[in-house]
């Protein structure tokens, strides 16, 4: 029951959550109808960034920061269960929301595919899986930040960092072209940051047609990609849980 209530709470913590879900579904529908993407990759990339990044930030805004800022956390952390469960079940709640959202996206696009002359949903399932993996990683990172930052600043900060970081990284790659620093930067972005590129390759089948092996999908690369994404999510989560368990909560009026 505890897990159920904590998970259920993520659906009702803010009034706009349902609006966010429905809005993105509508956006996907409009995008499909307007552009009728000839290749699954076009739609897939859009979903990857839309749901994997923006929806994750929207849903995880202030997920723990709200409780900490309002003082509600003081009652929650005096309950007789390991504080880390607060983090864990809320993250699971977000992950479940994403899973349902992406299932609905798949159904919606399947229906639209029947109605439109072209059809390009072959392999869409892999894109949805990649999106879910990315969502989990971004949500974990955002939730961990929410332990430190109050209110919805975790999402805002991440959004700014992603955008600014992307621009800065491109500039640095040009400046450091050929230098050893570029290699380190690439490695950091590839392996320590939410795996946008890896998951895009995984879903886009670049590990398949262009893999160094026979077959449509390189099994080892695909498994490695999924594993790395999950491990990264666990690392982000572990950091957040550690911070939450060690954090002190005070509403001192001194």
């Amino acid at each position, binding site marked *: *029951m*505890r897990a*159920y*209530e*904590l998970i259920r*709470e993520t659906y*009702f*913590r803010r*009034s706009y959550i349902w609006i966010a879900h429905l809005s993105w579904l509508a956006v996907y529908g409009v995008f499909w109808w307007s552009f009728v993407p000839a290749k699954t990759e076009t739609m897939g990339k859009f979903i990857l960034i839309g749901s994997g990044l923006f929806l994750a930030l929207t849903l995880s805004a202030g997920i723990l920061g709200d409780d900490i800022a*309002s*003082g*509600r956390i*003081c*009652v*929650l*952390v*005096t*309950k*007789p*269960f*390991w504080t880390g469960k607060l983090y864990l079940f809320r993250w699971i709640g977000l992950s479940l929301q994403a899973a349902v959202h992406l299932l609905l996206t798949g159904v919606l696009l399947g229906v639209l595919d029947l109605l439109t002359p072209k059809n390009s949903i072959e392999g869409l399932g892999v894109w949805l899986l990649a999106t879910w993996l990315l969502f989990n990683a971004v949500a974990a990172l955002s939730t961990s930040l929410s332990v430190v930052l109050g209110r919805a600043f975790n999402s805002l900060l991440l959004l700014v960092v992603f955008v600014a970081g992307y621009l800065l990284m491109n500039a640095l790659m040009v400046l450091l072209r050929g230098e050893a620093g570029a290699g380190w930067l690439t490695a950091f972005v590839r392996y320590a940051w939410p795996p946008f590129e890896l998951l895009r390759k995984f879903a886009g089948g670049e590990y398949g047609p262009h893999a160094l092996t026979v077959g449509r999908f390189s099994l080892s690369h695909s498994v490695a990609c999924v594993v790395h994404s999950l491990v990264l999510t666990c690392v982000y989560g572990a950091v957040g849980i550690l911070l939450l368990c060690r954090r*002190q*909560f*005070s*509403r*001192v*009026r*001194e």
Partner: protein
Amino acid sequence: MLVQTEQETACEAGVQPMVVECHGLTKVFRRPFASLDKAVCALRDVSLSVRRGQIVGLIGPNGAGKSTLLNLIAGLILPTQGRVTICGRPARSVAARRYLGFMPEHPVFPGLYTARAVLRYHAALLGLSAQSIARQVDASIQRLHMQEFADRPASDFSQGMKQRLALAIAMMSDPPLLLLDEPSNGLDPIGIVELRDLLQQLRDAGASVVISSHRLGELEKLTSDYIFMHRGRIVQFGDELTASQAGQLRVGVVSDGEAVARAALPSSRVLSVCDTELMIAIGEPDEVPDVVRDLVAAGAKITSVLLRRENIEEVFLRLCDEGDSR
């Protein structure tokens, strides 16, 4: 005995009648990267214990350290030095939290949840089964008289409703220790009476309650055991027990009040005097007959005798003055 000293705690070791034990608690608040001279010492070497069935009021001026002490007992913050145990378990541990019910000063609830849903949520967090949750929720609503607003969203609640709900949450599953921060905030007089009755029921059932409050008059209605704090330390109430029973004796005389007072009493006991009225400081009610006899023996013609006890606010203010002057 109001507050057990550490020595008395040691005598009863092994029996575990103590619900809360604090040993040498010190808490220093210091911002990261700030220098030591900017640190604030909120608690200094505080030791106390609260036994089973005791209702204790934490009083003190602003900045005395009441909230800090409450937060340390609740395990919300860690002491810089010293330790806190609840029923023998470290305060921040999961085991200790089983014995704890906490009510914050300004309770906040998710706006979309009704009172019933909030109670269900917190009952679930306690680890109760689905059937127990339903029973517990109904019992809480009955106990705190929340029937009228149980199914309204929390965003519509008044302060009093929020207090009731927060109290219900803290009392859920009858924990051995309740920590209440300003529980009577927003409660009407009927609510305060109900609260007092509730706390007494809890005490009779063996629960301990620590209440932090600024409303001394209302605190008086809830308990007679106090921990007075000033500048991060506990002021022992040993002598203050006597002091709380102290009072003023107003004696009306026909005439020559001043002469009679000078003749009968030491000047330190005479608070004020005029021709027809004397105000005499009384340590305890048993002194009244002796004072009257001494006045009569000194030739006073007494017309009236009225004893007024020092209330808790007067004690509080007196102790604040004494604390500041030390």
